[in-house]
């Protein structure tokens, strides 16, 4: 078994420590960071993702695989940066002001990280200004808002307005979700993307970031 395959296999079992050791070993053997990332780590996450879609593994399995993934990619980050390979993308995520529901949001983060995205998670009760300030500072591709209450869904509009005010509306994609949010609400409020679950949110974010 090649070392990259070994990384992928161990990642699928969620063995963070082993993955980290193997990544280091691969680096020492002179394998390029990009190959380790793509043929090792992301390959493993791809398999897990596919199994998840087919109901063969469940969220906890995906989560520990994602942990193993980030343990490995920590080591690769500096190498990737110096060789000019950019991270897949960067998004700002949070639950809107007045709302403390974060289970769905956390799941979205997990799925996005599993796809190799850098997620800046602002937590709960996040004001429109904080979403936008962070997106500006971090030069993020997307702002992702989660809202679970009818009374806080309106906050999404404030985030969009703040993005317009800050002059970044045409540069940043606004993704929204949460149980009461619908596609028609997304259109009405002027956001860009709505998806119904965390896996499709991650897929959509990857697309956005690769544009």
């Amino acid at each position, binding site marked *: 078994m090649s070392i990259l395959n070994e990384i992928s296999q161990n990642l699928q079992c969620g063995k963070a420590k082993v993955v980290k050791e193997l990544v280091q070993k691969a680096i020492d053997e002179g394998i390029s960071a990009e190959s380790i990332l793509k043929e090792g780590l992301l390959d493993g996450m791809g398999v897990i993702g596919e199994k*998840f879609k087919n*109901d063969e593994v*469940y*969220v*906890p399995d995906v989560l520990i695989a994602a942990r193993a993934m980030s343990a490995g990619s920590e080591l690769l980050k500096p190498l990737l940066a110096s060789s000019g390979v950019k991270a897949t993308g960067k998004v700002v995520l949070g639950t809107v002001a007045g709302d*403390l529901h974060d*289970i*769905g949001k956390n*799941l979205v983060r997990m799925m996005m990280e599993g796809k190799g995205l850098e997620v800046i998670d602002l937590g709960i009760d996040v004001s429109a200004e904080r979403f936008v300030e962070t997106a500006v500072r971090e030069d993020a591709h997307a702002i992702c808002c989660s809202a679970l*209450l*009818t*009374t806080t869904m309106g906050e999404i509009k404030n985030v969009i307005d703040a993005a317009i005010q800050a002059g970044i509306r045409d540069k940043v994609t606004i993704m929204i979700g949460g*149980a*009461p949010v619908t596609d028609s609400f997304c259109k009405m409020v002027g956001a860009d993307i709505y998806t119904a*679950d*965390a896996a499709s949110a991650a897929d959509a974010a990857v697309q956005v970031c690769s544009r």
Partner: protein
Amino acid sequence: MHLRAEVLSPKDLQTVHENTLALLEKYGIRIKHQEAKMVFLEHGAKVEGDHVKMPPELVMKALSSVPSSFILTGRNTERNVGIGEGYSPVFGPGAGAVFISDYERGRRPGTVQDLRNLLALSQSSKHIGVACAGMIYPFDMPVGVGLEAAILETLKISDKPLFGLSQDSAVSEICIEMARVATEGKGEHYVMGVVNSLSPMAWDDKMLGSIMVYAANNQPLVLACCSMAGFTSPTTLSATVIQNNAEIIAGIVLSQLVRPGAPVVYGNTSTITDMSTMNLCIGAPEYQLISTAASQLAKFYKIPYRSGGGLTDAKALDMQAGIEATTNLLFSMANGVNFVLHALGIMESFMSISYEKWIMDEEIIERIMRMTGDGCRLLPDAVEMIGNAVASGSGSFIDHDDTLDNFRSEFYRTPVSNRQNWDTWEKNGISCQKTANGIWQKRLKDFVPPELPSYVLKELEKLVQMP
């Protein structure tokens, strides 16, 4: 027929209780709210950063001041309900729904008209004990006064005791004030709210604010948790029960420190998490394991208990909806619940209310009441009655006094479930949905709202207009 559901043995109960005290003493509960922290501190709790750790004596003393029952007063005092020891369970409707659905129009966002319709169904339901302002959140409520306007609608259309709003301290204040005005001093407790802990082991600022406001005003509050085992509480159900118990008790202790004797209800709608969607599964059998344990704990502390009613994760009025709503209502009624929220209409893991399911849930409750009610009454003269009837020659009981006198009370007649034969059923194009649809439409047509004195209305309208 007596149904009595229990999952914890007396020894288990004692262990859960001791573990709870240890959890609260050693690890404490996470609280940021400064005022709440001060209250705990003043009464001998240890406050370390955002962790409030409470000694068992403090907890036990606070728990002992909780009333085991209380009366909730309505605008019309004939509608008053007693909640807790010695009273039969009080049912509240589905609440907090985002969407509404009915047979003709399908699923859609709820409107003010839907709220009005549900309030009329609730007022005219013989099973519903309270008027719930937050059944749905109408999308077309005027902005800024949405919540107050919903409370006003509730007070206009129903004279049952108010199950009010309690999203934060400001909403709680206004809701209590409106209920006070509406009930005109007819009783001590005139509005009940509900708050939820923030599992694992925390209470959010907003909820703490509501606890303090409801307690300070001596108004009853349901302190519940809705943890998701496997995500916000342990997968092992017994450990979830311990964590939940600690969270609820921490909230109850605060209420009693603010005002000893303030009425509270111990609530629980925690259940398992679906491991592929991470959705909350309120129709899962595990919900009743957790809820029954919680009910036993509430009884152990002599505090009224609240659980869920016709809970289901079903998206359509299908067999899943029927199975889940029935088992949940059955076990809630068997575990000695005192107050049931979401008794009628609720669907898809709390996301929507269905008009037809509302009517079907009423039938489920009636069926359970029939089974758990008077049971099989004995006759003093059964031998003679049977003997004479058989000897009389007709060979049938259809025209016998026993039938004529008793069939109406002895046989429960299902309003929705169909008992015709195939051909008639097919010819009439009957379905449960259609039958239920006809029932609620007729109820709305016949509905006459209760009177609300114009001076009370005026005063309430002033409160709604407040900036």
